[in-house]
């Protein structure tokens, strides 16, 4: 499996050629690229909506967009970012690319189903975009009934159908990963030799297959109530609006873990590799992923403390919410301890990890404010919540995604990007993000409700800070697109193992051949065996 031998065979990118070879590919790596392109497009669309929101909120009056348009813009920002960017972001791109390679196999268990899941995603996304052009949707991404089921006169049914269909893509990906991880590990790749990224993907997949059907049914019920006037959620038809919130959050809270768990997996890989040191407390990090996935299913009611749910139900949800903080804290401490006496490289992936750690800390800790019931009463549905979940989903999820992208980019594309640009972008995104969202904690505690098109003037100062930060954040993101695309065209060729990292993906050529390995690898070492790690390679021989 030496690099010399590997160079002889064309990489997965080169063979075979042609658009059809990509659109009909069963190669997990090419499907990862298809997903990477699609989620990037949706990130740009969702980001454009975010820019419109931040521009409107520069002034208190609501003078740029009409109220109806503003409501559609924040709805579409949420729907697109969550269902079409964040949920598939790491699992369908880095996960698709890395899961088979990391466990030492040629492909996922069901390559055709893998391709099908991408087509389902595209179909769902197309239908949702059709809703955008057919009048938009104004329910908020949460689709709360009875507003969504009877009051709103926008394209709710179409958007709900899009979300419903996309759910299947998520279910199929999760199912594919679980079967692959169970059945296709290379000889010697025992469960406790698995890279932590795999544990995280496994935990994420569990949430995907157990949770997604529930949200799919829920949005279908909204469509049924709108079109057939079945009384499910609207009390005028004999329904119960709070029932919707239970069903919706039963999926949508665990969905947050779909976004953050894979990012945690990425960070575990990166911390070890950039410190060239065994991860601290492997099994604690691995099991904390499972703990988060399982406990995460039992906390949905913390979204309903003021919704008129029973106060005793609230108590149970509050205590379990506090429990889910523990495995997150355990992970953070283990990552930090991994750096102790490490050999820490100051290359760009390290900058992304630091960004992730800083933002995830704030995001996780502010979750405690919202889990404490008496405080949540004041904070819920204010900008405090908006700031909190952006710190988790963007500060945690997107930073993890970008960190992983910078780390595995040489492997995926076979090219090196500009190191300095990578560091500058990481810092721009980190500072831009904080400038955008930190002021929202303050204005949230002051009482500014979310989803407000116009607001009292005393909140303006903080909104201007947010909008200025968002501009910086936008520049950071654009910069990444520029230098990464440039690297594909002009970047130097990447060696097989630029970081001197352990893991099967670094033992094969960059970019890999279609079947990943020339011969089936046999695993004899634990993960992160940095005492015997290979040298970082700087140049292609």
């Amino acid at each position, binding site marked *: 499996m030496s690099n010399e031998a590997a160079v002889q065979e064309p990489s997965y990118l080169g063979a075979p050629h042609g658009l059809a070879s990509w659109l009909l590919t069963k190669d997990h790596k090419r499907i990862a690229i298809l997903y990477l392109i699609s989620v990037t497009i949706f990130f740009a669309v969702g980001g454009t909506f975010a820019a419109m929101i931040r521009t409107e909120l520069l002034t208190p009056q609501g003078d740029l967009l009409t109220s109806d348009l503003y409501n559609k813009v924040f709805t579409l920002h949420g729907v697109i970012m969550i269902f079409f960017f964040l949920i598939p972001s790491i699992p369908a791109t880095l996960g698709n690319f890395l899961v088979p390679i990391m466990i030492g196999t040629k492909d996922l268990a069901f390559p055709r189903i893998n391709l099908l899941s991408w087509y389902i995603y595209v179909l769902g996304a197309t239908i949702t975009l059709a809703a955008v052009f057919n009048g938009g949707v104004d329910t908020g991404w949460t689709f709360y009934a009875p507003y969504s089921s009877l009051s709103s006169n926008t394209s709710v049914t179409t958007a709900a159908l899009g979300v419903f269909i996309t759910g299947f893509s998520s279910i199929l990906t999760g199912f594919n990963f679980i079967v692959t991880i169970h059945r296709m590990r290379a000889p010697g790749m025992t469960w406790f030799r698995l890279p932590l990224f795999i544990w995280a993907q496994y935990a994420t997949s569990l949430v995907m297959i157990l949770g997604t059907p529930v949200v799919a049914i829920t949005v279908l019920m909204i469509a049924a109530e709108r079109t057939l006037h079945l009384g499910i959620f609207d009390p005028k038809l004999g329904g119960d609006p709070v029932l919707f919130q239970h069903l919706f959050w039963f999926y949508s809270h665990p969905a947050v873990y779909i976004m953050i768990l894979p990012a945690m997996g990425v960070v575990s890989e990166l911390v070890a590799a950039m410190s060239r040191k065994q991860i601290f407390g492997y099994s604690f990090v691995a099991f904390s992923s499972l703990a988060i996935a399982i406990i995460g299913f039992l906390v949905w009611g913390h979204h309903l403390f003021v919704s008129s749910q029973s106060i005793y139900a609230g108590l149970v949800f509050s205590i379990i919410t506090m429990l889910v903080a523990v495995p997150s804290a355990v992970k953070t401490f283990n990552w930090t301890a991994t750096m102790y006496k490490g050999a820490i490289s100051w290359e760009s992936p390290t900058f992304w990890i630091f960004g992730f750690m800083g933002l995830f800390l*704030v995001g996780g800790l502010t979750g405690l404010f919202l889990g404490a019931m008496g405080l949540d009463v004041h904070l819920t549905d204010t900008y405090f919540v908006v700031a909190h979940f952006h710190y988790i989903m963007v500060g945690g999820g997107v930073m993890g995604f970008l960190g992983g992208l910078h780390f595995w980019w040489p492997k995926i594309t076979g090219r090196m990007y500009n190191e300095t640009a990578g560091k500058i972008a990481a810092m721009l995104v980190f500072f831009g993000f904080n400038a955008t969202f930190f002021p929202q904690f303050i204005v949230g505690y002051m009482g500014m409700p979310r989803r407000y098109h116009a607001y009292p003037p005393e909140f303006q100062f903080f909104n201007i800070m947010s909008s200025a930060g968002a501009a910086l954040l936008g520049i950071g993101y654009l910069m990444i697109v520029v230098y990464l695309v440039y690297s594909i065209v002009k970047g130097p060729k990447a060696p097989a193992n630029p970081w001197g990292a352990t893991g099967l993906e670094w033992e094969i050529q960059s970019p890999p051949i279609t079947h990943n390995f020339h011969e089936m690898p046999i695993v004899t070492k634990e993960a992160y065996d940095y005492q015997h790690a290979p040298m970082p390679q700087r140049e292609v021989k």
Partner: protein
Amino acid sequence: MSSGLPFFPPSASTVASDVDALYFFILAVSAFFAVAVSIAVVAFAVKYRRNKPDDIGADIHGSLTLELIWTGVPFLLSMVMFVWGAQVFFTLAKPPADAMDIFVVGKQWMWKAQHPEGVREINELHVPVGRPVRLTMGSEDVIHDFFIPAFRVKMDVVPGKLTTLWFTATKTGEYHIFCAEYCGTKHSGMIGTVTAMEPQDYEAWLAGGRSTGSAAQNGERLFSELSCSTCHKPDSSGRGPWLGGVFGSTVTLTDGRKIVADENYLRESVMSPNAKVVQGFGPQSIMPTFQGMVSEENLLQLIAYVKTLKPAEPAAAPANGKEK
């Protein structure tokens, strides 16, 4: 409407300081951990910066002691936050028995309030300081949420049921009312002002307000207009039970369940008479539904009237014993 601090809301209710204390406690714990971990990360990155490309870290795999410590300490701290948060929440959830009742109805996109004496206002709420006020709230259409940041209180206003929220204002002044649950086009326009006044000023304000009769008086008029009174009679001649003394009592249903007849039960019995039928009047109630015929405001007035009704003579008969 500011607290004097440009970055902190005014604290103008009895619970505000409780909520703020919990906030500062969690803030202190969070700040400690955020700063400690950040310092450790930066310090390690500097101290253990890689010198040669092929340097490797120390051969350390983990420590059970450390794992137990950093599992146990966050667990204990989070339990303190849970208990403290639950305490504050129970204070917020249980109105004092002597609270004065104000009815609030939310509809796209305004707040209507009615004081016990009958004075009504829109997008404004006048309350006396130093006296507990309980809002009983209903929605005409979609879910709204009544939020007064200065009082640190917030409660969803849910169609199909009544919810309550209470506070005791401590400082006179004008404070924001926001709708905090997204409710459509003019959601951000569904705002108002709560004016906390000295009790004597409040009395003067009430006296100067235009009243169209108290809530209970309006309820009495509706009770007769909607022909409730043809069946719900004080003697046992009516086809329905007499409603005097029902409020707050325990009633036995046709399926043997016993429930407390609170505002939500009375509301449901008007809108869906068949949902919970009192023993002796079932299995099917002969009462028609009033869904679509009574507004939330009227419902609140009817409930206010029913609350004033006395048990029928002789007093020995229990409220739900009329079926015999």
